[in-house]
């Protein structure tokens, strides 16, 4: 009881700690979520009912926040064109297009620049105090240029050194706000005045500007226009169909999903890759489980001396950092100075041959994965009461019969969810391929999918390689991959006894 009060008090303290920044930022939706989460915790633990919820709630809260929410966000991304060039809003895109097209106006005015403020040097709104070549002083702010009367300023060396009502930033203060100063622009009729250094500013002009009347971007030098296309989130030239690289984020509906099935560069090698993907995932699970179980069975006897030493040594691969060992395995299969070729006096280009590469990848996977299977099999074997096997022995069953009819079925009840999870993990085992073969060897000519490519490495290259990140498209593919894995797992669940366990 005291423990319960203490824990609920801790929850209240954490909720309060979390609430203050939200209140300060006036993030009311966030505060509502926090309040709802806290209230549900209090409800579950203070009510005498809902006993299962008392045990499930802590893990479930983490699950929702850091697993389900990211997955939902990813799925939501799949119906947008989110990616390089389509990250922000339309307004962001217009600003970006105009800023990148800024050039110095030919014959534009050069000013002597002094950065000042009307408020505190560290935080007050910036103004530019400018002196033109004729010696006239101006003050420039976000609204434009205003002439300063000559009696209110002191000009020295072509720059303002004192101005009534303004505090001039010294070098250190200006340095601290250099980012702001670089971005600061004083709008003029032709463009904007921006700083070109600590003491110079010049008038510059955007060659491309947004025209609200035609909802388009106009190039002021050539007269070309790109009209906003809300469906694709880009500015398109109606004459040529050419798009500006900078666009904005829009909902594209099921276009990404349709592209996976209709784009020939994606559907072409899809089925061959899918087949090998299954081969790799099933092969990895079966090989690692077979070897892991064999070792667990062999050491599951008190008559084996030094079996703890065996266990520690067998499990060692699992203790090594797996991504590092994948890179080491790649080097061991190296044709010229790889360990495998040197040990067996071979000169085989393992990663150059499709089946050699596949065998090599599976061998590395076996080495990395079988200690895990060894561990879980050992754990599960110890949970099986020895009476069952002993009873079968009394009834005259051979060792193989005892294993086949008693031990293995019981093991599979406990382990089949793990085997299915291992299948799902290996189906998307990005590192195992990416860090070793990189998907290769690639067939000559069109090199979109290699012999060892999994769907996920193949997708990765399509979505993130080449022409830039396409998160929306990648998310759509990951939804497909998820569906495939989920369906296969559901079928294998039905075929194993795991379901009976769940129903019972």
């Amino acid at each position, binding site marked *: 009881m005291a423990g319960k009060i203490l824990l609920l008090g801790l929850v209240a303290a954490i909720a309060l700690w979390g609430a203050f920044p939200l209140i300060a930022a006036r993030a009311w939706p966030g505060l509502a979520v926090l309040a709802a989460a806290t209230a549900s915790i209090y409800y579950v633990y203070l009510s005498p009912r809902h006993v299962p919820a008392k045990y*499930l709630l802590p893990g479930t809260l983490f*699950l929702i926040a850091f697993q389900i929410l990211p997955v939902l966000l990813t799925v939501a991304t799949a119906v947008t064109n989110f990616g390089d060039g389509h990250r922000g809003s339309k307004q962001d895109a217009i600003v970006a297009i105009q800023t990148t097209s800024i050039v110095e106006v030919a014959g534009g005015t050069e000013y002597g620049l002094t950065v000042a403020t009307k408020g505190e040097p560290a935080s007050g709104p910036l103004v530019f105090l400018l002196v033109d070549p004729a010696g006239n002083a101006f003050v420039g702010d976000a609204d434009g240029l205003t002439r300063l009367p000559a009696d209110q300023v002191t000009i020295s060396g072509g720059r303002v050194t004192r101005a009534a009502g303004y505090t001039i930033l010294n070098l250190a203060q200006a340095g601290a706000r250099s980012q702001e100063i670089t971005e600061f622009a004083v709008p003029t009729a032709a463009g904007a005045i921006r700083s070109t250094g600590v003491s110079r500013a010049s008038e510059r002009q955007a060659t491309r500007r947004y025209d609200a009347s035609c909802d388009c971007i106009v190039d002021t030098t050539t007269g070309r226009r790109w009209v906003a296309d809300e469906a694709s989130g880009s500015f398109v030239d109606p004459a040529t169909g050419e798009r500006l690289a900078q666009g904005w984020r829009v909902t594209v509906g099921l276009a990404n999903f349709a592209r996976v099935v209709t784009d020939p560069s994606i559907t072409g090698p899809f089925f061959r890759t899918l087949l090998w993907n299954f081969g790799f995932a099933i092969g990895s699970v079966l090989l690692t489980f077979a070897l892991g179980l064999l070792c667990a069975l062999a050491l599951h006897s008190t*008559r084996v001396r030094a079996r703890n030493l065996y266990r520690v040594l067998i499990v060692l691969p699992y203790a090594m950092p797996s991504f590092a*060992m994948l890179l080491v395995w790649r080097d061991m299969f190296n044709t010229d100075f790889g360990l495998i070729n040197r040990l067996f006096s071979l000169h085989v280009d393992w990663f150059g041959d499709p089946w050699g590469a596949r065998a090599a990848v599976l061998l590395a996977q076996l080495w990395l994965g079988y200690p895990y299977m060894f561990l*879980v099999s050992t754990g599960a074997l110890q949970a099986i009461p020895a009476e069952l096997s002993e009873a079968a022995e009394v009834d005259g069953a051979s060792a193989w019969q005892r294993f086949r009819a008693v031990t293995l079925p019981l093991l599979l009840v*406990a382990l089949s969810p793990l085997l299915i999870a291992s299948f799902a993990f290996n189906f*998307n085992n990005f590192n195992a391929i990416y860090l070793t073969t990189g998907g290769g060897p690639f067939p000559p000519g069109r090199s979109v999918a290699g012999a060892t490519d999994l769907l996920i490495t193949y997708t990765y290259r399509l979505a993130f390689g080449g022409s830039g990140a396409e998160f929306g498209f990648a998310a759509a593919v990951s939804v497909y*991959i998820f569906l495939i894995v989920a369906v296969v797992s559901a079928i294998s669940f039905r075929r194993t006894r795991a379901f009976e366990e769940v129903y019972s």
Partner: protein
Amino acid sequence: MKRWITQVGWRHGVGLAAVAFSLFPIVFVLSAALNPLGTLNSTHAVPTDVSAENFVKLLRTQPFESWYANSILIAGLTSFAAVSLSMLAAYVFSRMRFHGRRVGLLSLLLIQMFPQFLAVVAIFLIFTTIGEYWPAIGFNTPWGLILLYLGGALGVNTWLMKGFLDTVPKELDESATMDGATHAQVFIRIIVPLVSPILAVVGLLVFISTINEFLMANVFLTDLDSKTLSVGLYGLIYGERNNNFGIFCAGSLLTAIPTVVVFQFVQRYIVSGLTLGAVKG
């Protein structure tokens, strides 16, 4: 003698073969770590020259100690918290019958089948927001990364524990309930001590997967001093593969030490068959 071979000898045969298979790449890594030249193409299968040069270089040129401390902190706390959360859930899934139990169990497996690395973009956006409000659990902090890892606490591990718990006779906790114990007392006094072997195994599994986790940590920890071992080591060979190979292997070997130590520590729990004792006694 024949009897010894069929009953015990083959076990040693399998054990020795497995040990040889397990060890040979590790010996190669050891050989590279001890190789004074420290390059990939000068490394032999077994150590020929022995020098600590790579280790010294690693400690001198990289903030290896802070990587190490970060990794131990993150992996230790994550595995403790994940085992606790998972055990709570496994207890109700194994012992109680309630609405949504089946759906709950199956969705735990299903959620983990989503290709996580594609959710990295979403996770990045989530933690950018979190970091704005609560910098203490934002990017480059171990706490935020631990919270992220705990999102995966329920899942395969819960299944593993539930499977183990299903084999513990229900009579044990039922008799305690008859004697007037509450569900919380049954859980703490009876269930947890009985399943300590599986707690140890799952704790070890989580510890290992956390200390080796690379994808999320690489996005999360960008400050040189806040990195974990896997992120730091990857940075070593990212550009300079051949030349830093020795240092990289030295680091990999040192990375394995905590795991081996933890394994030693929980070994007796894994081996002791507590359930058997409970049923027999």
